[in-house]
């Protein structure tokens, strides 16, 4: 609808409004503000923010929202992102006033409700993954990785050797090496073998007494289970290093198998993936970190403890890696995950994993005859296609296919990741999607491939039906326009 056409920014909508009286006017006898506060601290004018009417505001953001694709509006098979259904009840309950209005520095005796739930959630996550203890403090997956790497660092230091290298498979998510570096490590890449898994020979070559940890995603970012995990764990532990689990892909195996069992020493989870907290257009998430028994003392502060029947927060942990966030991370997100886990129990979580894998396996099977998978092995909850065969696909590359899917009413899969797959399309259907939806997605791919034969130009130039067409990102990066400047003001 033209309703959804170009929407001006709030700065362009600004027509010089004088603003609303949000608060009762100060009593006439009240002193002027600059006799209360030092004049030299006060700005002469209020900040340059438009004063729109409430309807102008509501309409603006309502219209913007309609330009978004979302899980609530359609299939969002974005690989590695687990775009599953975010239950509304989790939203509603985490927002109850008793939770929402609680100040983080409230004496813990008056915050027992939230503290108990946080404790219960971290225990359940520990049981589910087979770890000894879990902290909810990290705000996202990468924050969890950072936390985990700090723990690895502290542990090795404690053991008297400042190991400086973290091994990261070439298929790993970009946050893995970045987090290791944030924690002061150097990273060394471990190759994947022809089957898409860690190349054991390469690992053996690269692991040594300077290796602090190996970061592993399992199933890995190709959607494949690292079958040699026992051998990998043995190699890592024999070298005196720690095995780190990137839990972004836990949705394939939650309740089915435990990272703790496989030999992982440190893990992080993405509550905004496996535990269905919404992605929020990019965040907030929550990245709890679990550790084995040895590493418990290194967990970040504060730590929730129960004493004399009361939960409290302990900031004084001698060996802790310290504090990671202003307070205790994204508590509101943890509450959502708590509700989700309570609704599911073990059976529900297992069924999620099974269905997530079944959906991926089925979808892969249905698509494979049209577009080859990057690797033939049975996938877990996601899989990677490759359009690298130019003879077959011409210039219908991963990006082109992605943009055409938008025109068919689907969000695009993840493209060009993992980096080891050329022209990669990474598809994760999640357990929330019906067979009907998967089938219609297959149908859309078929139609696009057909259309490419009859009208390649239209296909190349997709999308055609989105609020904007393809954007010139190169020009945007060359001359970044990051903040609105009034065209008249700049002359």
């Amino acid at each position, binding site marked *: 609808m033209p309703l959804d056409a170009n929407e001006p920014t709030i700065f362009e909508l600004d027509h010089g409004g004088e603003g609303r009286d*949000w*608060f009762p006017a100060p009593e006439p006898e009240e002193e002027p503000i600059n006799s209360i*506060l030092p004049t030299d*601290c*006060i700005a002469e004018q*209020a*900040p340059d923010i438009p004063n729109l009417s409430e309807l102008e505001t509501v309409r603006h953001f*309502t219209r*913007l*929202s309609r*330009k*978004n694709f*979302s899980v*609530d509006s359609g299939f969002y098979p974005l690989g590695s992102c687990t775009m599953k259904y975010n239950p509304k009840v989790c939203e509603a309950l985490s*927002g109850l006033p008793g939770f929402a*209005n609680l*100040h*983080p*520095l409230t004496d813990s005796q*008056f915050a027992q409700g939230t503290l*108990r*739930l946080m404790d219960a959630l971290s225990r359940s996550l520990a049981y*589910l993954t087979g770890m000894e203890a879990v902290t909810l403090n990290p*705000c996202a997956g990468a924050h969890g990785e950072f936390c985990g790497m700090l723990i690895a660092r502290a542990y090795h230091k404690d053991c008297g050797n400042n190991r400086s290298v973290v091994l990261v498979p070439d298929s790993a998510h*970009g946050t893995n*090496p970045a987090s290791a570096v944030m924690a*002061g490590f150097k990273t060394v890449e471990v190759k994947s073998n022809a089957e898409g898994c860690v190349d054991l020979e390469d690992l053996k070559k690269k692991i040594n007494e300077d290796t602090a940890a190996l970061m592993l995603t399992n199933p890995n970012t190709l959607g494949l289970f690292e079958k040699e995990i026992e051998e990998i764990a043995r190699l890592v532990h024999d070298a005196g290093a720690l095995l780190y689990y990137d839990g972004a892909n836990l949705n394939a195996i939650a309740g*089915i*198998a435990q990272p703790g069992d496989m030999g992982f020493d440190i893990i992080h989870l993405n509550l905004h993936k496996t535990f269905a907290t919404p992605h*929020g*257009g*990019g*965040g*907030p998430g929550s990245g709890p970190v679990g550790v084995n028994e040895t590493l418990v003392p290194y967990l970040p502060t504060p730590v929730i403890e129960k004493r004399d029947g009361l939960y409290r927060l302990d900031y004084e942990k001698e060996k802790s*890696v*310290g*504090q990671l*966030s202003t307070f205790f991370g994204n*508590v509101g997100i943890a509450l959502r995950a708590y*509700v989700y886990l*309570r*609704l599911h129990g*073990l059976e529900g979580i297992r069924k999620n994993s*099974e269905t997530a894998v*079944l959906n991926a396996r*089925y979808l892969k099977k249905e698509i494979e005859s049209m577009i080859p998978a990057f690797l033939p092995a*049975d996938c877990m909850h996601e899989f990677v296609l490759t359009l690298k065969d130019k003879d077959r696909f011409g210039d219908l590359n991963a990006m082109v296919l992605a943009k055409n899917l938008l025109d068919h009413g689907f969000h695009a899969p993840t493209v060009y990741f993992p980096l080891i797959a050329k022209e990669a399309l990474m598809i994760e259907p999640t357990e929330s999607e*019906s067979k009907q939806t998967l089938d219609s997605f297959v149908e859309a791919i078929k139609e696009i491939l057909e259309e490419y034969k009859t009208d390649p130009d239209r296909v190349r130039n997709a999308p055609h039906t989105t609020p*904007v*067409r*393809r*954007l*010139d*990102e190169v*020009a*945007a*990066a060359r001359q*970044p326009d*990051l*903040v609105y400047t009034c065209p008249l003001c700049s002359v």
Partner: protein
Amino acid sequence: MDYIPHTADETQRMLSAVGLNNPSELFHMIPSAFLDPEIEIPTPVTEMEIVEEMEKAAQKNEGGSMVSFLGGGAYDHFVPRTVNALISRGDFYTAYTPYQAEASQGTLQAIYEFQTLLSRLTGMEAANASMYDGASALAEAALMACRVRRKSKILVSAAVNPQYRRVLRTYLEAQAIELIEIPHTEGITDLGSLKETIDADTAAFFVSQPNYFGIFEPVDSIAEIVNHSDALLGASVYPHSLGLLKSPGEWGADIVSGDLQSLGLALNYGGPYAGILAAKQKYIRQMPGRLAGRAKDRDGNPGFTLTLQTREQHIRRAKATSNICTNQALCALASTVYLTLMGSKGLRSAAERSARNAHALKDHLCKINGVRLRFDRPFFNEFVIELPIPIQQWLDKASEENILAGIPISGAETGSKEALLVCATEKTNPVDIDRYSHLLSKMIG
């Protein structure tokens, strides 16, 4: 409860399609030793039951309905109900990071508007799409300063929120960056000590305005000192105050961090909040986190896209400016809606009202025998008082009367005996101010 759409028949058909009979066969590649672990988590409940459980738990948070004078980095500000009505549209909150620009124009434009609002508020030329929270944003700002200046020493005022300093320490220690705290004298940064400590190796000095004690720092003098060195001047701000105060840009900051919580976010026992990171244009290529930019589409129409992504982990991996990926986007959206609703007038009057209420409270309290300001300096909406009785005694008494009377601050922080950090906002009710002072004066006797 399960949210799975398949009928038993469909599951069977899909299994057959992939050549299986039984869901358990899906996991054949997992070594069988790992399969079927015993896991003891609570058995599932229905929505009806969890509603009851959560409502009861929420009631167990007595603090959520007490009259609160707590600040110290999180504030009970007024939030128009419209903020929640808009950000709770599934179209916003069930979307991912806007990597597919054409399908994410709503999120992208909102980020662009957010960046603009924050750069205007802070007086910087650019702002990113959010960090995790105020403390980690400060830490990332420090790391950014080190990259910009290619140096590895950071100074921070001891009058910056102690929680923030703890996080800063965690981040800097990891990269072996030296962190030196500049002490405060009587509630403001010790200028002499700053002047002495800052040197050619210093990447930046960070200060809060107002500081942790609610007090105004002598930012002009600080800026002068820092400008005489090669170091950057970094700020950690309470953005609510920027409705009224000079922006960090005005007093010379190069990088600004802070927490969005005071701009439209609920207290939520500490999170989700979001971190602010804004800086001068010339530093943006060292900035961590996501940035949206305006661009033209194929037909020449304006649109928005993520930009300068080569700074980020998904492109640059180990060499990225930060490991951050998921940020606090929905919180940034909430602040964008909040700021648009309040407008410049609303923001300014909110900040004025906070200050007025805090000063009214201070006036009441300081009339009580033995109660006095720990630091006799101009403050914004928080102040530190000393009591003639043990702090905890007063806190206990007040909580019996349904009041959270403040945040205890150790003698180590105040440089003297234990004291209380007391806060008022635009929501603070005159009646409650009266009750507070009345109860306290009765108790002191």
